[in-house]
């Protein structure tokens, strides 16, 4: 799980171009959207691409991801349970 969380953070930082942020700056439980990292709807779509590309998980739209994308921990949990690669 630790490894998955670190990899996931690196993938998000790269995909979202969060240049000044390191994996250690993202709290595993902090909200990703709104407050926290301040991500928006396009970023949610970007995380859908990460799930598809690296973990073989397909989500139809961002609203399906609303609960899953709460924090790094909730995304990692979801990946553990549903990954196909």
């Amino acid at each position, binding site marked *: 799980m630790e490894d998955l969380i670190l990899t996931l953070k690196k993938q998000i930082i790269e*995909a*979202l171009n969060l*240049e000044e942020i390191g994996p250690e700056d993202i709290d595993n439980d902090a909200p990703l959207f709104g407050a926290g990292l*301040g991500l928006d*709807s*396009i970023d949610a*779509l*970007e995380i859908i*691409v990460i799930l598809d590309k690296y973990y073989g998980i397909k989500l*139809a739209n961002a609203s399906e991801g609303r609960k899953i994308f709460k924090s790094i921990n909730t995304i990692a949990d979801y990946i553990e349970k549903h990954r196909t690669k």
Partner: protein
Amino acid sequence: MIRVLSSNIVSPLGDTLEQNYQALLAGHSALAPYENWHGAPERFVASMFREEQTEKLAVDGFTRFESLAIRSVAEALSHTDIDVSSPRTLFILSTTKANVEELGPVPDRDRAYLAPGDTARKIARHFGMTSEPVVVCNACISGVTAQLLAARLMESEYYDHAIVCGIDCQSLFEVAVFLSFKSLSPEECRPFDIERRGLNLGEAASTIIYGRCAGTEDGQWKLVRGCLDNDSYHLSAPSPDGDGTVRAISSALQAWDRDRLALVSVHGTATMFNDQMESRAIERAGLSSVPLSALKGYYGHTFGAAGVLETAVVMRALDDGYILPVRGFDEIGVSGRISIDNRRRETSGRSFLKIISGFGGCNGALLFSKEADIPGQRAADTVKPSVMHSVHLTDSSLNIDGREIPVAERGKPLLTVIYRNMLEDCPRFYKMDVFNRLVYVASQLLVKEESPEDRDDYRAVVLFNGASTVVADRKHIATVSGGEGFFPSPSVALFTLPNIVTGEIAISNGYKGETSLYILDRRNSPLMEQIVEATFAGSEARSMMTGWVDCTSEDTFEADIRILTI
């Protein structure tokens, strides 16, 4: 005022306006499902030319995009006797991506790619035109922007005739952009319907030729006036209450009696957000009882063509006294009160409103009428605007209001250094691609020079560009045709829309005035001045952020912009 001299549509439904109109009357559409199309993993529905149609339309020595434009312009010209070779005949190409299907992920894999301005010039020269063409690249509202630009430039007496061609082709490039946004419907689109699931893509070219007129001509279609503005809300979603659309409508209608409108020709993309927003805007503008015309269920979303094509179709249908059925609509699925029907309706109305909204937060509304004796717009006296502040930022230099600021970095890192040292925090900065960073940094440096009392919430943003978004375009192509499979990135895709830079300025500064992006084949100061002066004369804008912004690689860019007032 300007009036329509001739119109054409080349679409999968036919090569002339009449063929298209007869197909619509018969309820036809070319929408068809595509599965595993060129490696796209998801099914989508689109209205695209069949191979034999493309072959029939091909013009020797021209790309598919150019051939289509040439066919449309040539057919429209065949019904007029205007002098195309006159320097007072203007060519406006309305397109979001022009020849992008010829672009490769790296320059040596380009096919017959030309930048949009060069493409327009090539088409114009084919017809012997001698004036410099303008490409309007304002996302979905390009076709409305292009017609309003024609009106402004002719009312300011720079030109006597304008050939406005709206066109886009669909390729894996566009399919990937809209799949990444999750906005494509897997079935035929259903505008304003409770079960709508997104948009369908469409290919078409549509041309309207305009000439100047007095406004007295009975029975001839005239563009009475129009308005463009920005929601200043979000780059990829409209303001939920349709604030910008409501303002554009009221500015286009002014005191025009709602009962004189035969219909409102809406954008009606069949996405959740667009249709809901438009219904709210229509109700708020007092147009709930005016019938809607929505054509995406026949043609799909034809991007740069949409605003021109939908105008041409509505004029033809109203000449017969018809409001065409809203194909795809069945049960109301929006909260704003609207008058919509999937059966043909009859009308004796002789005026209509065209509304449209697009990425980057831009909205537009145009009022058309064939009534007689419409009072002309106020005399379009152009005045020389004054320069309030200027910023000239290149990949290796910075000059603010004539002061040279020494810089240590070069290329993209220079933009980050200036942002960190000179500008306030903006969480979005790091998500921007190099072109957006360039325009963001230059525009915020400009705003910083301004004193608070000079701030103008309705400031227009009118930018000119040469290379379109070629850096983001190549990056996007690499995400769908590289070795890693088909994984288009929505944030890269967003930056392939050139007018996003103008939307970012509007959002960052709360500007609600018009935002437009024009592409030229080269930096052409006299033409840029004409457009700026005609925009001031033909709109309510009293100040404007404008200039040249161009980025050809991560290390080669220039923004030379200023704040003007009149």
